[in-house]
């Protein structure tokens, strides 16, 4: 029983990341009709926003260490961040410690800007082209973006730890009557799950309860009629692209302490997120969220040793297996709408 609870918890945070990326993907598909293969790269750029801010606020000057030499026998130095001289050592160290959550403030404008530039600069020229063309150009864009990141940050993963306060794990077992230490879960992963829930809730609320959201939903349902009513739907859809980019970016920022960011992390998530979108139903926002969590949890269960002993390799194919079964039984996905991608 404790193993099952643990794997469900595990699936929830992985599912959170899938759901956040898939939400943006399906939002872009639902509004603009574009299959955006560069969406994983936006997740990766979000994670690198955390790396960048962390590096920016840690910019240091060298201070000589008396009596010590470096590996070449020269005078040894240590790095002292400039921020210490502005805020004092304690406050400066706290700011550096909280770099990841603070990166949210940097990531929102940066990601919206990148999203809008991407849409206006490249993707809008491919609206009327076949989906295959859109996939090729966005896939190419993803490779370009990841090579740019690799050029500046290198190929190795970069450790980006969570604030000291969230390092360690929470003992669920002791809380719900199991033996202490049997169900433990890292604090930061709980934070990630809560953060994902807030973002998903905010996106739904924005679309559901604001006039802007209402127009966007109307545009998703019937773009032509909304246009005939004199509403500039294109402009709103561009903003939605920026919003989807910001959601992917925020998912990446908060994921940085879970997996040390590297230039390739977007690609690793992209394929799975596409499966999530297809399983959830193309263009369906609740479907993307539901499928994200569902596949995250299933993937967790498939990695258990007890399961692998019976079916070796199941962990590597489970998501695709489920996708095949769901598409055979429900061709439009779990919550797909009629008419989407069926023309």
């Amino acid at each position: 029983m404790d193993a099952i609870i643990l794997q469900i918890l595990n699936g929830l945070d992985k599912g959170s990341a899938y759901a956040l990326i898939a939400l943006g993907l399906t939002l872009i598909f639902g509004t603009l009709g574009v299959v955006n293969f560069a969406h994983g790269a936006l997740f990766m750029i979000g994670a690198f926003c955390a790396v960048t801010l962390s590096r920016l606020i840690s910019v240091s000057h060298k201070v000589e260490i008396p009596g010590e030499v470096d590996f070449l026998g020269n005078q040894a130095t240590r790095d002292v961040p400039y921020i210490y001289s502005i805020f004092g050592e304690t406050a400066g160290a706290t700011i550096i410690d909280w770099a990841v959550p603070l990166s949210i403030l940097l990531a929102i404008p940066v990601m919206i800007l990148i999203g809008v530039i991407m849409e206006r600069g490249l993707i809008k020229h491919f609206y009327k082209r076949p989906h295959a063309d859109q996939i090729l150009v966005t896939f190419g864009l993803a490779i370009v973006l990841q090579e740019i990141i690799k050029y500046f940050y290198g190929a190795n993963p970069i450790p980006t730890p969570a604030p000291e306060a969230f390092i360690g794990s929470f003992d669920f077992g002791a809380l719900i009557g199991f033996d202490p230490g049997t169900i433990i879960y890292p604090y930061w992963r709980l934070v990630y799950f809560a953060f994902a829930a807030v973002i998903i809730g905010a996106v739904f609320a924005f679309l559901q309860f604001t006039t802007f959201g209402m127009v966007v939903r109307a545009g998703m349902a019937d773009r032509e009629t909304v246009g005939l009513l004199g509403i500039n739907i294109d402009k709103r859809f561009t903003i939605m692209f920026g919003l989807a980019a910001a959601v992917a970016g925020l998912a990446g920022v908060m994921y940085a302490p879970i997996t040390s960011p590297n230039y390739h992390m977007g690609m690793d998530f992209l394929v799975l997120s596409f499966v999530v979108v297809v399983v959830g139903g193309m263009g369906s926002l609740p479907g993307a969220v539901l499928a994200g969590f569902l596949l995250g949890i299933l993937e967790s269960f498939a990695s258990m040793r007890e399961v692998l002993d019976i079916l070796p390799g199941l962990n590597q194919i489970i998501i695709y297996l489920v996708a095949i079964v769901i598409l055979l039984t429900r061709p439009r996905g779990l919550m797909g709408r009629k008419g989407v991608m069926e023309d």
Partner: protein
Amino acid sequence: MSKGNLTRRGVLKTGAVAGAGLALPTYLSAQDSGFTNAPTGSTVTLGFNVPQSGPYADEGADELRAYELAVEHLNGEGDGGMLNTFSSKALQGNGILGKKVEYVTGDTQTKSDAARASAKSMIEKDGAVMITGGSSSGVAVAVQALCQEAGIIFMAGLTHSNDTTGKDKKANGFRHFFNSYMSGAALAPVLAANYGTDRKAYHLTADYNWGYTTEEAVKSSTEAMGWETVGTVLTPLTQTDFSSYITPVLQSDADVLVLNHYGGNMVNSLTNAVQFGLRDRIANGKQFEIVVPLYSRLMAKGAGANVKGIFGSTNWHWSLQDEGSKAFVKSFGTKYGFPPSQAAHTCYVQALLYADAVERAGSFAPCAVGEALKDFEFDGMGNGPTLYRGDDHQCFKDVLVVKGKENPTSEFDLLEIVEVTPVDQVTYAPDHPQFAGGQLGSCNNGA
């Protein structure tokens, strides 16, 4: 139509004859000398096949730095580095056999097919007489097989799988880097001394060639010490979040987790294991421990503070205080501003060993070079007295057991040497079961 007019057929014929004529000297020179890409002019070209893109690009960049430094030293530029400490004095700093050393580079991308293609291109188009480099066993095995067919010497870079000099060994291939068996043999006594002989180990293993041999080596060495293996699970190479593999460890009765992972896999699995509190855990009345059989400083940097106190093994470390290591660190550090990695070290040494073997053989012919390398004993290259065993073309030398440093003084000072395991303890018979199944075959001069 007059005779002097150009015709399509005529142009084709002339082109074919001219092409054959141009190609003939190269072909004849190869035939004359009896081996592929025999250098004819005043220069000789070496092919450095390293990952310049893909997940090991940072290691590849460090390998390339080391090769450039080696070329400088071979050509008599710079401070000479390890040429000053190398026990063999055949190299004079005037190139190799008086020919100035030039080089071409290829990008392995850490993909076997791409690595073979880049090696093939360097051999066929650039006339490389030797191929070296790489940061993956899959790539090393693939390129080694290609070099064997082409009649080129392959001096392996960073490759740790037993198979490179085990079941996939080739007469034209040589490895200086240590292997999985040696890691297991060096680590087990240190682990027993620090953690006791009554331990239950759980292995997470990368699902490819290197992972399998490392798991087998560590498992058999630790079991021989009295440890019990309670679980082994293969993890996909593309995995980034290992939480679903870590949580079953909590449910098992294991008190040690062995991470047979390298590169990004190692960084992420170790980070996840620490996040899940494994290092603070008490299991079977003992402190839970994590072991990383193959350490690299570049990876340790990626894992940050999570490596503190964790045991592993390494081929070489810049903090070694022998004359060879000091000379290399000084050359490398002065040129690039930071100490070299173990990947850089093994590549630099391989380039020098090849050049030295050519000088001693008096020929670039692969079979002559191979003979010069076989059972060659040397010192002054950073690992103490070393033997290039003729039976399998594997170097035998001391192995370093290292631990993540508790209080690093710089971003390079991440590992501390716990023990230098003597070579006798890591030496095995050429027909050891972990290396069974392959034959060196006979050397190939190609052409």
